[in-house]
């Protein structure tokens, strides 16, 4: 372990590596989340295709579709980090071995990497299949990155909650959707603007909203996670 790491960061890194190695062995989360995204993408592409949407409405419609695909994709895989610990009965050991903040940050880092990987595959593929031409590529991908950051933070805490409840699969989207709604609405609107608006005057305010949402969710998650973890 690099000596420059503080004990907390060292724990976070160790937990992240543990999850990453386990994932590389089984590839359950990566395969399921990626396949789900591709199936949804194929369904959207097949059902509406790139040419059935009027050109003027394309940015708004396709941005909404992309946001929906990313939301449901995240719902299929992000809960696994905590659910698998509870199902394989390793959560108790983890409780003894690491402090709660380290567990949360380690799991969050894993989920962020997972979503970054999936987004990196799905978004260009979506743009390619749906003939989605983007005017401001940097803003477009920056908005997606910030939105996925906020979405993953909130989803990771919800994943910890549902891992301790019954009917986990159904509960995850039920609990997540209302809390993620502000970021989903905002993302859909901003992606449409980044794709079609010639000027970028709206960008600072938009980034402010996405950043404040992600920041608030992060602080709340760090403060509340211990209560969930030790429940």
């Amino acid at each position, binding site marked *: 372990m690099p000596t420059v790491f503080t004990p907390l960061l060292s724990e976070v890194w160790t937990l992240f590596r543990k999850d990453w190695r386990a994932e590389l062995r089984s590839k359950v989360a990566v395969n399921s989340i990626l396949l789900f995204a591709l199936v949804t993408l194929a369904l959207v592409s097949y059902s509406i295709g790139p040419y059935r949407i009027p050109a003027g409405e394309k940015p708004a419609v396709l941005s909404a579709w992309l946001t929906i695909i990313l939301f449901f994709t995240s719902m299929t895989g992000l809960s696994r980090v905590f659910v698998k610990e509870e199902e394989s009965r390793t959560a108790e050991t983890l409780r003894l071995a690491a402090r709660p903040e380290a567990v949360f940050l380690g799991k969050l880092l894993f989920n962020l990497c997972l979503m970054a990987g999936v987004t990196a595959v799905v978004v260009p593929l979506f743009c390619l299949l749906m003939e989605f031409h983007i005017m401001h590529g940097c803003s477009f991908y920056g908005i997606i990155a910030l939105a996925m950051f906020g979405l993953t933070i*909130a989803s990771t*805490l*919800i994943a910890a*909650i549902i891992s*301790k*409840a*019954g*009917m986990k699969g159904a*509960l995850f989207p*039920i*609990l997540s*959707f*209302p*809390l993620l*709604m*502000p970021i989903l*609405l*905002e993302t859909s*609107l901003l992606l449409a603007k980044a794709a079609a608006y010639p000027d970028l005057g709206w960008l600072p305010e938009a980034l402010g*909203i996405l950043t404040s*949402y992600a920041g*608030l*969710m992060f602080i*709340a*998650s760090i403060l*509340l996670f211990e*209560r*969930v973890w030790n*429940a």
Partner: protein
Amino acid sequence: MSIVVYVWILLCLAAAFVWSPTAAHFIGQSSRIVFFHVPMAWIATLAFLLSGWHSLRYLNTRNLTHDRKAKVAVRQGLLFALLATVTGSIFAKVMWGAFWNWDPREISITMLLFIYAAYLVLRSAVDDPVRRAHLAAVYACFAFVAMPFFVFIIPRVYFSLHPDTLLNARGKIEMQGRILATFLGSLAGFTGLFTLLYRLECRLEEILYAEGESA
């Protein structure tokens, strides 16, 4: 206290339909719905704040009484949010021609309904009472953090057909005379009604808990 509240509500009803005139720029009698719709939306928000407060108190004290109070607040908040949605939809049909327009205010109230419903579904998915209280309290606190985005940011970022709230963006109260008096009276009356219902259901919960029937 209950008699005073019931009489007050009756007076508000009479004032809303008889004493108060209709407001300008609204179709027919549609403006009268403000005396019921806004108090219900206000109580739904108040109940949400109350559930957040008791959830926070539960996490600090581990006293299950706070968990039960949070649950009661959510249940009643759900009822009032539903009533606010229905009254809002009736107004939307008269004024804008459709029951539902996905106006930012409609999105906000829908999300509040979803949060309340999700909270109750979460409670029903956990058997152990202490674990249930813990998880529900965390979810309520988490939702509490997201709430400013529903109440303050979404309605202001997106274009809305919704009329100004009591205190509008220019910091002015547009209502006057009898309309304002009826509106404030109705706000006070429905807040009193909520207080009454809330205390009653909290007492009922305590009795059920003592008899081992509370969930």
